[in-house]
């Protein structure tokens, strides 16, 4: 990676770190100036992150999301984008703190790894691969947001604190995260299936990664239905969101790092 890309990445990390700190201050002090500053820093960090992503894309000649560093980097970018979406739409402020902390964790881990893009294997050299991974990580990011909001919902139900949004808004945000995550993940599965068909001659692989991706899709598809069942609304939905993200994390990191699959992370 060029020095410029490295500098951009470290600057984005610093912005996110400062922003998360300011959000933490905002949680305790509750002054608008802190969340405004924090939000401004997220915007700057996201701008630098996006520029770095664009630069890496330009230098590599393809969207570089093929190894552990680049997937952590891209997942972190998708999380920041998802946070901004909810912040701009609902002004969730510090309620998105978990997402920012997760973002920092991913980016911090990425910073310690080799950032050099590897030569692209011929089968990955197709726009279908790009669409597959973009929608995949955007879906993951919305599921991570649903986890975060589910956790806050359970906290708010117990604490009834004015520091957090009310339960109705949290429930609405949770449902929106799941719905959008499911839609984006559906597109990921469709583009992945078409790509697999032209690359290997079948559109569904019985590799454990493919199977777990289908299970994620099925699980969140079930959740999109569960929101209509009174018993599962609210607390049940929050718990399901958290369980679902566990499956997502295992599919992304657990299978990629611990088991042999056709989506290795190294």
């Amino acid at each position: 990676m060029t020095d410029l890309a490295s500098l951009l990445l470290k600057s984005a990390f610093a912005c996110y770190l400062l922003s998360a700190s300011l959000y933490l201050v905002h949680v305790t002090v509750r002054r608008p100036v802190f969340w405004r500053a924090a939000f401004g820093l997220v915007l700057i960090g996201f701008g630098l992150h996006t520029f770095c992503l664009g630069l890496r894309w330009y230098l590599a000649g393809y969207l570089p999301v093929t190894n552990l560093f680049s997937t952590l980097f891209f997942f972190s970018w998708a999380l920041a984008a998802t946070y901004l979406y909810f912040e701009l739409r609902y002004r969730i402020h510090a309620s998105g703190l978990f997402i920012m902390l997760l973002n920092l964790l991913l980016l911090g881990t990425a910073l310690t790894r080799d950032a050099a893009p590897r030569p692209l294997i011929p089968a990955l050299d197709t726009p279908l691969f790009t669409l597959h991974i973009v929608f995949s990580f955007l879906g993951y990011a919305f599921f991570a947001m649903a986890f975060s909001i589910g956790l806050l919902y359970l906290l708010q139900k117990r604490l009834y604190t004015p520091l957090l949004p009310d339960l109705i808004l949290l429930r609405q945000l949770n449902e929106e995260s799941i719905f959008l995550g499911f839609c984006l993940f559906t597109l990921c599965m469709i583009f992945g299936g078409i790509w697999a068909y032209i690359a290997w001659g079948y559109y569904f692989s019985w590799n454990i990664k493919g199977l777990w991706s289908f299970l994620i899709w099925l699980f969140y598809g079930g959740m999109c239905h569960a929101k209509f069942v009174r018993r599962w609304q609210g607390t049940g939905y929050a718990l399901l969101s958290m369980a679902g993200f566990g499956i997502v994390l295992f599919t992304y990191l657990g299978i990629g790092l611990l088991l042999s699959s056709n989506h290795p992370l190294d």
Partner: protein
Amino acid sequence: MNTRSWPRTWWKWLCSLKLAIVLASLTTLLGIGGSLSIPFYPRIFGSMDSLPLGRWLSTFGTQHAGMTWWLWLCCALILMLGLNTACCFIDWLQTLRARWRKTGEYLIHLGFVLVLSGYLWGSLSGFRSEGNRLAVGQTLAIAAMPGHYLRLESFEPIMNESGRPIDLRNHLTLLKGETPLVRKEVRTNHPLIWRGLTILAASFDRVNDGFLFDVAGQGRMELRNGSRIPLPDGGQVIIREYLPHAVRLDNGRIVAGGDTPVNPSLLCEIVLPGHAPLEYRYFLRGPAPRQLAQRGLQLIPRAPVYSPVSILTINLDPGAPIAMAGAATMTMGVVLAMLSFYYKRNRGDRPVL
């Protein structure tokens, strides 16, 4: 139960949202538990992508029922989920005028049913074949489609500076009998697709199919099956067969013993005007046959000659076009569902029951 109302009760149950949730949850839980055995038993599960699911289940699935029971159950649950989704979609169609705003969501339902139907059809009547080796000019019969053949017109593996293959360019013709049906350049991510048949460039190899000779007075010459060498007296030598490793059996017959040039040999035929053709075998490790020297032809073997061979994957999935139609329907459904979601959110609608 009232006998008139039971079909309606059954229909309501089949369309039920709760049934969908139960089936999706059970499949997820079962899949999560069962699939963890996949990486640990490659001898059982390693061939799942090499065979259509129906054939795999009827062979490996029944032989190792103790390890694959969860998969049978998952398949049954998914089929039930497909039925539930189809009934739900039909139910929606019956009330379309009142529920047209849910078109996006129900297109996703229809897409899922189509993908599942396509997969089921392909699993039951599909065919997968890997490692089909084809040299330029050769024709291969497609086992799954009697009367259909594949001919490799040309083949070129493309390498980068470090010698790593980056593409495999095959010019293939699909024939029915002698009639060409499709001609296409097949390379990585660009298969030949024809009515559920998919031909993919999988890999390549090099095969020793001839030998390089110094021919006195004629320079260097590569001799393979079918090569001809003109003779000074007007006749010619035709190479009928090249064997990289010729093995002599007890009965004196010469057969191919492998692809590595251990004991290369040529079956030559000398054709002279006014004479009966004369056939003899030339073992390149031994001296040149006197029949050649008598006719003024001096051959000095130099090195084996290798030609690239394309390795193709041939899959037949008659359900693939239906599954692709399902994918397109689902994509439309997702786009419409998202548009409808934002429209409804802007109006303040929420799905509270």
